[in-house]
Each structure stands twice: as structure tokens, then as C-alpha cells.
């Protein structure tokens, strides 16, 4: 096997051993990191590969959480059907968002996805008969075999690993390479005869699908959903994780998620000023390292390789 796969397996093995050496609470933290890594990676599919930065993915993510929790705990349906419906709902939301958004790019795309996300948030807030409004929907969907911290962790690790692999294959497929081309130069791709809007649309729907899967995992983890789950803050958090990790690196999002969530936990022990720290991270990253941690690492590696070769 090649070097990259070896690395991936090693990391996966390390992650699998984690619950044995860390506390139950820390296991839940890592579980959260995995869930949000999924969200961040889905955002990266669009931002890093199609060059479209979205502020609406939190809503797509939370949509799945709402649907599965509602279907199982309020409507009393079966878990597996609920999961399918939830992923379908998220993907459908992505289809709607996508159809409207493909006509734009850059900051307008950002604003449009923001607005669409706000519509979903507004619906979750005001459609109280279904979503419970401010009260949210409470209830666990975990079957007995997932009741411990460790069991849930392994389940989510497995699903996230499969998702990450699928996303990796997607962005490295010919389709994914086309998306990359669109990010680099839309006009060139258009000149070459590619149907840019169609590609962006499909990319959006695929990213929505993965965001939905992460949303379902979140439902397993949190056993609670409220308008906070779909609000703008969620989209911002996911985007920041993708950026800090490295837009366009896909796995950088996993690092980004780990960094942000662990930082939040550590910082919160000593001060209430986490939002300020988060904001400063945004500012510093944008000025000094917009390519993110993994991006910067790749840059430095490339530079070293070039030096070695010369």
C-alpha cells in the first residue's frame, strides 16, 4: 500500500485505541470532533474544490438532525427509516439551495447561502407545532448497544471514516478534478466546454448529502435539537474548521475540527472569552494563514522538496 494509505490506517488505529486511554468525557469530545469534521469536510468539498464558500451548511446539517429526531421521537417511526428520511431531507435542502445558488459565486454565493440558512432557521423557530420552536425536540434515538460513550464513539468513528473515504474518492475522481478546475479558473473551464453550473450543482448536492449524514450522527450524540443547531453560528463554526484546517485539503477539516473543539474546551476552563479567541483565530488565519494548517504544512513541505531538488 502507498504511504498515504499507511498513514491513514495508522491514524485510524490510533483513534480506535483512544477510548482506552482517555476519560469518558474526553471520548465525547473526540466524538464531537468527528461529527463536526464531517460537516467541515462537506463544506470543504464546495469551498476547496468548487471555489464556493457557503454559510448555509449548518442549516443543511441541522435539517437532518431535526428530521431524524422528529421522526423517531415524536412520530414514533423506526430508526432506519428516520435516518434515510433525514439524509434525504438534507440532500433535498441542498438541491433547493443549490438550484438558487449556482447562479452566483464569491461573496454573493456566501450571502445567498447565508440567507437560505436563515430561512431554515426561521422555520425551525416559528413552526412550533413541528419543531417545538424554542423548546426544541428532546429524545434519544440511540439503541441500547450504543448507550455507552465508547460504543457511540466507535460507531461515529466508523461512519465518519467511511464518509471521509467516500469524500476523498469523490474529490479525486475526474468529477472532483473538474471542480478543482472550476475553482482555479471558471472561465477556462467554460471555454473548455464544461457545464460549470451543472458541476457546481452536483458538487453542492453531494456536499449536502455528507452534511446530512453528519447531522444524523449529531442526533445520535446530542439527543436534542433546537434552532441553535441550524443557526448561522453553526455554519460559521463549520467554515472556520475547514479554513483553519486548510481549504482544499479535505482532511485538513478533521484537524481544524480537532483544533477548534479542543481549544474551546481548554480555553473555557480558564476564561469565558472563548468567542474572542475564536474571532482572533479567524482574523489571524485570514491575514497570515488563509491556506490553513494543513495547507501551510503542504506549502512548507513543497518548498523543502523544491529546495532538496535544486
Amino acid at each position: 500500500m502507498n504511504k498515504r494509505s499507511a498513514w491513514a490506517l495508522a491514524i485510524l488505529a490510533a483513534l480506535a485505541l483512544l477510548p482506552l486511554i482517555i476519560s469518558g468525557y474526553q471520548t465525547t469530545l473526540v466524538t464531537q470532533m468527528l461529527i463536526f469534521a464531517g460537516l467541515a469536510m462537506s463544506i470543504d468539498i464546495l469551498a476547496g474544490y468548487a471555489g464556493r464558500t457557503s454559510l448555509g451548511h449548518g442549516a443543511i446539517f441541522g435539517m437532518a438532525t431535526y428530521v431524524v429526531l422528529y421522526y423517531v421521537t415524536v412520530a414514533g417511526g423506526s430508526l432506519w427509516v428516520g435516518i434515510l428520511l433525514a439524509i434525504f431531507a438534507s440532500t433535498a435542502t441542498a438541491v433547493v439551495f443549490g438550484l438558487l445558488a449556482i447562479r452566483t459565486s464569491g461573496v454573493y454565493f456566501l450571502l445567498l447561502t447565508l440567507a437560505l440558512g436563515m430561512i431554515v432557521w426561521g422555520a425551525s423557530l416559528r413552526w412550533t407545532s413541528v419543531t417545538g420552536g424554542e423548546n426544541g425536540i428532546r429524545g434519544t434515538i440511540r439503541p441500547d448497544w450504543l448507550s455507552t460513550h465508547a460504543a457511540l464513539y466507535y460507531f461515529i468513528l466508523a461512519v465518519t471514516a467511511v464518509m471521509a473515504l467516500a469524500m476523498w474518492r469523490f474529490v479525486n475522481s475526474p468529477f472532483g478534478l473538474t471542480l478543482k478546475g472550476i475553482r482555479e479558473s471558471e472561465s477556462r473551464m467554460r471555454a473548455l466546454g464544461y457545464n460549470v453550473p451543472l458541476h457546481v450543482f452536483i458538487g453542492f448536492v453531494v456536499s449536502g448529502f455528507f452534511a446530512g449524514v453528519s447531522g444524523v450522527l449529531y442526533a445520535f450524540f446530542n439527543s436534542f435539537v433546537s434552532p441553535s443547531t441550524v443557526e448561522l453560528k453553526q455554519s460559521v463554526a463549520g467554515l472556520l474548521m475547514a479554513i483553519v484546517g486548510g481549504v482544499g485539503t479535505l482532511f485538513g477539516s478533521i484537524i481544524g475540527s480537532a483544533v477548534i473543539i479542543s481549544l474551546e474546551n481548554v480555553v473555557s476552563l480558564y476564561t469565558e472569552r472563548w468567542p474572542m479567541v475564536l474571532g482572533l483565530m479567524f482574523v489571524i488565519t485570514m491575514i497570515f494563514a488563509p491556506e490553513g494548517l494543513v495547507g501551510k504544512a503542504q506549502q512548507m513541505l513543497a518548498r523543502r522538496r523544491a529546495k532538496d531538488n535544486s
Partner: protein
Amino acid sequence: MNRRKFLQAAGITTATTAMSPVGSLISDAFAQSGPIRIGLMAPLTGVLAAGGKELVEGFNLYWDQVSRKVAGRDIEVIVEDDGSNPDTALQKARRLVEQRNVHWLVGNILANTGLAVAEYVKGNGVPYFIPVIAADDLTQRKRLNNVIRIAGYTSSQTPRPIADYGLKQGYKKAVTISQDYAFGHEQCGGFSQTFTEGGGQILSQLWNPLNTADFSPYIAQVQSFKPDVVFVMETGADASRFIRQWANFGLKDKIPVLYCQNATDQSVIRTLGSEAEGLISGAHFCEGRDDPANNKFLADYDKAYQKLPSIYGFSHYSGAMWLAEAIRHMGGKVEDRTNFLNEVRRIKLTGSPLGKTVQLDAYGNPVYDVYIRKTVKRPDGKLWNVPVTMYPNVGQFWKYDPETYMQQPPYSRTFQGIKKI
């Protein structure tokens, strides 16, 4: 066997050993001499930030008065902000229990935050004490063994006397306006059921989202119905804004208003002026009551915080007092959860600022005298609530038989107990 299974086996062996009688004795001995860690959650940001701050102040005031030591054990209070938001409340509850290993959770203000935390402790049995969370069902249909409303109240408890008072004033047609979440639904339900059962009529019910900045559309609607009286269920910043805007629209002297206890609470009226004078509300806590225990509490509170106490400060002060009583009864051995919780339920609290003994009814909620109060300006310029009349011994079930009452659905946006004429 492979490495993972080996490690698992090793882990299980260690765990079992630790759980053996010797092991538990040792860890118990350690625990019983260490501090009692209490996880206090309060909204320090968001729509109830003012109340949240007072919740913390009231709670800490009691522990400071007993030098943070009860029955030989130190008391450690760890405060977390729930952001006036159930998702945040849930995260903080998890952090307090799983990372900081608190013995109990206490606090929160907004009913939706309390319900989220209650759901969490349902799963792990951690005691959760709620002097302010008023969600009805936590002591009715959905009561939990480890969730106890010490020094607290249910949402629908105090609006019923208010409705009765309204009927006695001759009001026949009412409009209710309320924040759109559990607490609001239940308060309005309590009001509407009693009001309509007494022959009154609810013309319309308006619901505004938490954190409504601009009440003008609602105020316009209220006016359009031409009611005899308006029942206003707003808390925190929403209450402050409503009172101000209602006065600015010139309606203060035109349409009578009956406020819920939170709307005219100190945490709201403290920063208001003449627009908050002469407001009628109903509550078990009435800071302008001339009573020795109440006056002493006010003096202590003023010395510590230079202000008049709100219901949040009062409830958590009394709640802390309640917990201290229970700790003393247990001789400090609070790790014995089952007995500790039973002890908490048995407490008859004397010495609270209410001046009367407070105890829980058979379902875990206190019974109180409810005062219809009015805001007046003191000689020193501060506003406070003074009693106008009093309804004695009001429990969570009012005049209904508990079992019959619990057969009707819980109050919600769609069920308000309104009696059809």
C-alpha cells in the same frame, strides 16, 4: 487474543477491582471529605442575562453567609453560562457532570433550558435542583426522582390567582400576550383556564419569540381586539421592552394590564422609570412585604449587592438554604444519593425570606401564599412590589384534584385549558 481485546480485558479487570467493596470504601472515604461540588448553571448572556446574574448572586450569598462550609464539608460552586439557550445548557450540563464531576446540578432560568438538562439527568441520575425552572410537568406528569423543585414553583401556579383577581375586578374579556416557549404556554394556560372557568372570555392569544425587540406589531394587535384586560407574560429583556413600549404608545392608562411575576420582577423594574409604576402582578415573592424575615433578607442582599433582590436571587438563596439543611441532616454524607434525595424531599424549610415554612406537596412542588402586588416608588426613588391582596396556600394544582387535573393534556400552544362557552 488481539491487542484490543487484551486491553479491554485489562480495563474491565481494573474497573471491577475498583468497584469491589474495598475499593469503594477507599474512594468513598476520599469523596466524603472532599468538597461538595455544585454545578450552577445560569443565563449570563442572552435574554435572561439580568436574571441569570442574580441567580448566581443569590446562591452565593447563602454559601458566603455560612462561610462555604456545611457539616464539615467545603462547598464549591462552579458556575457555567447557559446562554439562555437549551443547546448550550445541555453542553454545559455535560461538561459539569462529566468533566468537573459535580455532585449536583442547580439552576437555569428558561424552561426550555431546564427541560433539556432534565432530559440529560434522566439518563444518569445526577440530582438536578431547580428553584426557578417552572416547567409544569417536571412535578406533574413527567416527574423524575432526581429532579426536585426546591424553593421553586410551576409556571401555571401563580397566574391562576391573577386570573381570579382579574375576574373579581370585573374584567370579562382578555387578550394574552406571551413569549412563545414552554413557560409562556403554561402561564397563559393557567391564566386562561381559570379566567374562562370563572366566566371570562379569551379574545385572542398572541405569541412573540424570545428576544423580541420591537413589540409594535403586537401592541397594535392587542389594541385592535379592545379587551377589558391584557395578561402579559414576558420575562427579562422582553418584559423591560414591553413595559417601555406599552407606555410609549400611551396605553398604560388606557387598557388595564395584569403582569406575570417575572415581568415586574426587580431584575426588570430596577432599570425602568415611571413607565413601570403601578403595575399589577401576582407572585409568592413580594419584596415590599413588611415582614421580619423578608426585611432581613433585603438588608443582607443590599449589603452584599447594593440592590433589591429579584425572584431569581430569592429563589436560589432559599434553594441554597434548602440544600444546606439536607446536607446537615445527612451529616455531610451526600454521596448516598437515594437517601440524600429523600432527605431533600422531606425538608420543611424555616428561615427563608418568605417568613413561613415552605415544604413540597406530594408531587414535589412547594405550596405558597400568592400575593397580588403593585409596583410603587419608594421614598429613595427605587421601585418595588408591595402586596395588594393575598391568596393563601396556592399549590400547583389550584383548586383541582391532582389526579383529575393530570388527565387533561399539559398546557401548550394548542391546549390552553380554555373553557368553551
